[in-house]
């Protein structure tokens, strides 16, 4: 099997992802582009029994003059000589490019195409949305385009799959006929004299395969990451002081449009209809200045309602499944340290990760539907200006909504925000949105604040407290954004400039793939950290300095004999005594003086520490500390907590003041190592992760302090 390398390129909203999914099916994987964190999707597509292509899907890009991190990838990749010609140390070049353009927006989708073509790589122009065009009776003369642009042109539909076979056949022909070298003799852009001189000199100095590539070096030498310092200096000496990148960029863009727009106008036949479309009519409501936000809030309400009610069933199954698995392992293996590590460390840790999948997957399902239908662009339009007051961008709405599932994929979604400050503020405040890991903690504690049967008018008070906690997270995120906005200074201006695509019915295949990828990101990014910390915590809770463990066990046995406890009660008492003397217990007691003003004792201290793996570990830790066995049901944990008496004050530990204080702490605190790791990766420094950790923890401490001190 011979494998060719090909790139899939096009503007945002050209339907590239659908086409990519059609070509590769499920044979795709997500990696990273070299040196940057932007997702690189690639997949194999077979062309014949002996040939296949390894296709890389590039982020949607308007031109070789990028505005966001996502957009830089295309120019960075194709400014590398090794993308155009095979080199010994950098491996295989791109054999072909499939450029995707939306027929219904052809006039504005060909700028990048004309730039790509000047690189000299074999290129195929795939005219997407053939089905939509046909329904709107838009005709296109592909032969005319082929002869004018001198590339093979094919009509396809990523939605229906029409034309995919033609595309593959064409691709095979192109690959077979032009394997040898790139052709640079038909550049469409004609340089001015000064531009020509610069491009020629850079090309010959660095021995680049194409003159237009040399031009990209001239335009982007300031930031192209693969250039060495020496190369940069050489380029600077060539481009001289009169080099006006913006002027040249405008000249190039105008000239390219002037070349292809007349061709497109000739090749297209449009029926002239001025009737408002379905999209226009829907937009009258959805983007209405007053009704728009109402529709948005209503949608969010429905979505969260669905997430909570649907997710509870699979979550119960996963919980029961892991409970059963732990029992099974306990029954099969003889009692040993290893068995305990396996069940209480490894399996409990795994269960702690997997339990969140239903909620996260269902919320990301809705996010994908909102994005792919075109609605998310409307939400961005509605809230851009309000968001800016808090240092955010309209696009931050995607991260904030996703943050209710898990902050990790949410933070990764900020790469479309071009302004560094707006993106950074979004990253910093997103973890304040209550994520799914906080829910189990809220569920346990809310009962100690208000009873389940208390009502305020027609509203259940517990429900209101729940909603209040979510709102508190949102308010904190906006407030923190407002503060960051005041502190951080930037010269770089932010942009909205966003297409409002026509509404389309999302394709179930694309939606499910997006859900799969984001959920996988959560499982891998959060999972590996939660997993490791679960094991570390197991060691901390299972070992003690010196022979304290043995002493604690003997002591517990004595008490149990005196009170003639049955076997279960004895074992639970031993577990409780053991965790008290363990390293975790020592840590809890060590931090007790600090958390006492918040109404917390050392037992809660242990839970706060273990929550660093994942917040919901709180519930399991409580079960162990209160000696009811770690596999006890949630209700028995609550029952036990309700009777717990504070050793210092002699009052009930979980009175209203402490419980509310603890809830507030969980709303604000940064208790997620996985998120910090992702923040470090996305901002390329530990600085921002550290700042985030300290400001959120400080907010949590102060919030709890105020609540507890004013209530007790």
């Amino acid at each position, binding site marked *: 099997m011979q494998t060719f390398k090909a790139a899939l390129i096009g503007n945002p909203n050209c339907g590239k992802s659908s086409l990519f999914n059609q070509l590769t099916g499920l044979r795709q994987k997500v990696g990273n582009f070299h040196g940057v964190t932007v997702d690189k999707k690639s997949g194999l597509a077979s062309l014949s029994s002996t040939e296949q292509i390894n296709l890389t899907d590039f982020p949607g890009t308007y031109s070789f003059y990028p505005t966001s991190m996502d957009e830089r990838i295309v120019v960075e990749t194709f400014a590398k000589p090794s993308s155009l010609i095979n080199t010994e140390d950098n491996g295989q070049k791109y054999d072909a490019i499939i450029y995707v353009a939306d027929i219904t927006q052809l006039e504005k989708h060909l700028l990048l195409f004309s730039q790509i073509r000047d690189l000299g790589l074999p290129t195929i122009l795939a005219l997407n949305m053939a089905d939509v065009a046909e329904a709107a009776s838009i005709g296109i003369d592909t032969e005319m385009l082929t002869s004018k642009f001198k590339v093979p042109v094919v009509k396809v539909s990523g939605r229906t799959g029409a034309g995919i076979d033609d595309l593959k056949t064409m691709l095979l022909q192109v690959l077979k006929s032009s394997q040898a070298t790139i052709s640079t003799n038909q550049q469409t852009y004609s340089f001015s004299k000064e531009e020509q001189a610069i491009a020629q000199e850079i090309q010959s100095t660095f021995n680049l395969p194409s003159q237009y590539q040399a031009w990209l070096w001239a335009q982007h030498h300031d930031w192209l990451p693969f250039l060495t310092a020496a190369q940069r200096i050489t380029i600077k000496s060539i481009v001289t002081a009169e080099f006006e990148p913006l002027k040249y960029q405008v000249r190039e863009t105008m000239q390219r449009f002037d070349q292809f727009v007349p061709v497109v106008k000739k090749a297209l036949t449009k029926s002239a209809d001025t009737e408002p479309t379905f999209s226009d009519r829907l*937009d009258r409501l959805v983007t209405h200045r007053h009704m728009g936000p109402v529709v948005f809030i209503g949608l969010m309400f429905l979505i969260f309602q669905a997430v909570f009610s649907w997710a509870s069933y699979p979550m119960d199954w996963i919980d029961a499944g892991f409970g059963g698995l732990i029992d099974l392992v306990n029954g099969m293996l003889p009692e040993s340290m290893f068995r305990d590590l396996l069940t209480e460390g490894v399996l409990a840790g795994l269960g702690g990760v997997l339990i969140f999948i239903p909620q996260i997957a269902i919320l990301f399902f809705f996010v994908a539907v909102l994005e792919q239908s075109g609605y998310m662009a409307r939400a961005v339009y*509605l809230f851009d200006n309000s968001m800016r007051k808090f240092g955010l961008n309209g696009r931050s709405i995607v991260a904030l909504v996703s943050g209710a599932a898990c902050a990790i994929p949410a933070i990764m979604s900020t790469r479309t925000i071009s302004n560094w400050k707006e993106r950074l503020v979004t990253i910093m405040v997103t973890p304040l949105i209550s994520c799914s890991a906080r829910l189990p903690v809220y569920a346990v504690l809310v009962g100690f604040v208000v009873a389940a049967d208390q009502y305020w008018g027609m509203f259940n008070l517990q429900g209101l407290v729940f909603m209040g906690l979510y709102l508190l997270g949102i308010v904190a995120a906006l407030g923190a954004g407002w503060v960051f906005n005041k502190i951080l200074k930037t010269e770089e201006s932010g942009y*909205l400039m966003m297409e409002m695509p026509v509404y389309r019915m999302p394709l179930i295949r694309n939606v499910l793939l997006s859900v799969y990828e984001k959920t996988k990101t959560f499982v891998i990014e959060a999972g590996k950290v939660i997993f490791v910390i679960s094991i570390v915590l197991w060691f901390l809770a299972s070992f003690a300095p010196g022979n304290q463990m043995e002493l604690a066990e003997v002591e517990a046995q004595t008490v149990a004999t005196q009170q003639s406890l049955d076997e279960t009660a004895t074992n639970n008492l031993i577990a409780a005594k053991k965790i008290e003397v363990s390293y975790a217990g020592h840590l809890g007691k060590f931090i007790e003086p600090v958390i006492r003003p918040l109404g917390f004792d050392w037992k809660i201290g242990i839970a706060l520490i273990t929550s660093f793996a994942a917040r919901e570990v709180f519930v399991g830790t409580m079960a162990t500390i209160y000696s009811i066995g770690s596999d006890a049901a949630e209700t028995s944990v609550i029952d036990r907590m309700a009777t717990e008496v504070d050793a210092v004050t002699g009052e009930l530990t979980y009175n209203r003041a402490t419980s509310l204080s603890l809830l507030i702490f969980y709303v604000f605190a940064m208790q997620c190592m996985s998120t910090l790791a992702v923040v470090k990766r996305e901002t390329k420094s530990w600085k921002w992760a550290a700042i985030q950790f300290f400001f959120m923890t400080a907010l949590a401490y102060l919030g709890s302090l105020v609540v507890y001190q004013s209530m007790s």
Partner: protein
Amino acid sequence: MRLNQLAPGQKSTVLRFDDAMMGGKLMSMGILPGSKVELIRTMSAGKTIYVKVNGHGLALRSSEASKIMLQANTH
């Protein structure tokens, strides 16, 4: 006349850009001198605007739209 000064429902044609940087970005998205524009509606007291350029929807901040100079005759 600038794009952010149009009233909802008003149409015009792009003449030139007031700012080369912004112009470069807008041109990449297919907004060129000669493009037909229509202001559809606005949000946040005109701070965010929804326009159609050659029939395709686009959201702009008013600071961005103010860099787009229009031909004098609107309709």
